């Protein structure tokens, strides 16, 4: 166990899995030099046949991942910023998400698509989307959204042993933070949430980048006498509804925090599922804290107005906790 940054944890996971599994190949723009850092050192270690520096051609790259995966390779396809997923979206939405199904199960598609999502660094609208909701809606794609370096390692290793298309969506602003990373063969099953804080008053589900401000909000709320059960789903497909519903069964209150735009977000999906399956557990409205339906602005002042932070999470919790009389 050592402290590492998230990109280092991902890099370690990929390196270990490529060592284990000779069928893994890597595609992506500048993966050989790796500006992000997550594919650093791979070409030196595994050679240029397995690590392919790709032209800026997302359409063919995303689709090649599908073709190669269907025919015997296991593919890591590095798409850099999440917004570039759109450029190669046909291969993802029409091919990767559907090919196995259309073919009646004839193929497996072991692909790990990687991208960085979310705002907070003034890279503006075309580099800051959080597009996990539309990937969730496609149905045929698993999605991992680690909130810590340790989780990143465990989830990436699990994803690289899964026989389905998996998206690893890494919070762009979080590459630099340190966290404990277990050494060696450490995997986290896809579909297993973690309760980061145990509490009884309100359940907060926070996704990916939102776990950090949610943790801060928990502290502030604790100071006000409100104990929060904080759930980090870690993978949004599959989503661990058992964990979420078990927590809501205790608390009767739910706030979901998501950096996606609110409409049709993961926050909406979780809220809707709980309003359907856990309605009788609820004592208060379900709160959503998400980006309002705007693109990400550039100026830090504007970004701050748009991206959920601890204060907004605290407010949302207070709003539904007040009705219980816990808060003033």
């Amino acid at each position, binding site marked *: 166990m050592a402290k590492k940054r998230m990109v280092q944890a991902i890099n370690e996971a990929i390196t270990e899995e490529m060592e284990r599994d000779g069928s893994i190949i890597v595609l992506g723009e500048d993966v050989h030099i790796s500006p992000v850092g997550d594919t650093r050192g791979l070409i030196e270690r595994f050679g240029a046949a397995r690590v392919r520096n790709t032209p800026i051609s997302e*359409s063919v790259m995303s689709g090649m991942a599908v*073709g*190669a995966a269907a025919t015997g390779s296991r593919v890591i396809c590095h798409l850099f910023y999440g917004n570039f997923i759109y450029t190669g979206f*046909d291969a993802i939405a029409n091919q990767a998400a559907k090919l*196995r199904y259309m*073919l*009646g199960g*004839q193929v497996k598609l072991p692909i790990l698509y990687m991208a960085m999502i979310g705002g907070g660094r003034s890279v503006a609208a075309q580099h800051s989307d959080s597009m996990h909701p539309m990937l969730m809606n496609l149905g045929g794609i698993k999605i991992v959204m680690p909130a810590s370096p340790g989780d990143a390692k465990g989830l990436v290793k699990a994803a690289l042993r899964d026989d389905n298309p998996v998206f690893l969506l890494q919070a762009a602003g979080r590459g630099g933070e340190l966290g404990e990373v277990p050494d060696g063969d450490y995997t986290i099953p896809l579909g297993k949430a973690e309760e980061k804080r145990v509490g009884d008053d309100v359940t907060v589900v926070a996704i990916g980048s939102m776990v950090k401000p949610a943790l801060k909000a928990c502290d502030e709320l604790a100071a006000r006498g409100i104990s929060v059960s904080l759930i980090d789903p870690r993978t949004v497909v599959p989503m661990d509804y058992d964990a979420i519903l078990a927590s809501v069964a205790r608390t009767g209150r739910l706030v979901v925090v998501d950096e996606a735009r609110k409409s049709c977000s993961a926050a909406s999906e979780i809220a809707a599922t709980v309003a359907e399956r856990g309605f009788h557990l609820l004592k208060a409205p379900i709160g959503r804290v998400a980006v309002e339906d705007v693109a990400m602005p550039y100026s830090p002042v504007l970004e701050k107005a748009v991206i959920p932070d601890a204060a907004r999470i605290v407010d949302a919790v207070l709003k539904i906790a007040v009705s219980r009389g816990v808060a003033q």
Partner: protein
Amino acid sequence: MSPREITSEKLLQMYGRMFRIRQVEERLATVQAAGELPGPVHLYIGEEAIAVGVCAHLSDQDWICSTHRGHGHFLAKSDEIQKMVAEVYGRATGVCGGKGGSMHVADVSKGILGANGIVGGGIALAAGAALSAQTRGTRNVAVVFFGDGAANQGVLFEALNIAALWRLPLILVCENNGYSEFSPTASVTSGEIWNRATPFGVPGRPVDGNDVREVWAAAGEAIERARSGGGATLLEMRTYRLRGHVEAEKSFLSRSYRSDAEVEQRREREPLRLAMAALQGAGVTADAIAKVEEKERAAVRAAFEYAAESPWPAPGAAFEHMFA
């Protein structure tokens, strides 16, 4: 390779396969008109020489990716007539269990990665299959069939660039059948399609796509080059679509987009006719040909009977196969 290298046995074999495809497609037209098929079908009639001439060089470990007009490609590479027809019928016995239908017929065990409902959708998949074959150090190749209309999709150029850079064992077979849906090719396509490979340093050439011998020779050369590390080729197969873009199109089109006379004129050089003449020229007897035809007719008849009598999928099957 030269067309003259084809033995008369090979020619007869290819003729038989083309004949089989024609039989399947004609029957599909009939049952479609009779309302027996759940979905639309895009038939390959008039283009059979391409699939057959190309696939004659491929093993089960070589991959093909196909189009919305994919029955011919399937039948040229897989023997599973029954399973294919059953798939088009939407039955449980279909090669995709009824989930894919006409636009997704695939036999992965035979190296067929599927037809594709997205115009140009197969190009990147095939490039990926070629990459996989190359990385794993095999001598296998990937072939993608696509239409003249698909040649206007940007992904083709991205694939040409990457195939050139990485010397991928990829053969890009454009089936220029004169129409992109209801638009004459020239009205939506500038320049010559084969020439679109040139700037990338990928060899491109036009081929008489109606003459299976020409197809066979051009494809053989390209495939051999790909196998031996020489990289990609773009072959523009010139052919003609003898039936509509989709069966029953006349029921929804308000006007015609080509004349009957044009179709009749193009029928003169249709691939079965040309192949028949070649067989005769090579001294194959009418008897030998008739024997092959009869065998194919019987197999196809049996496949349609099998399909029509096959059970529907269980409704619950709809919820399987999203994830492995």
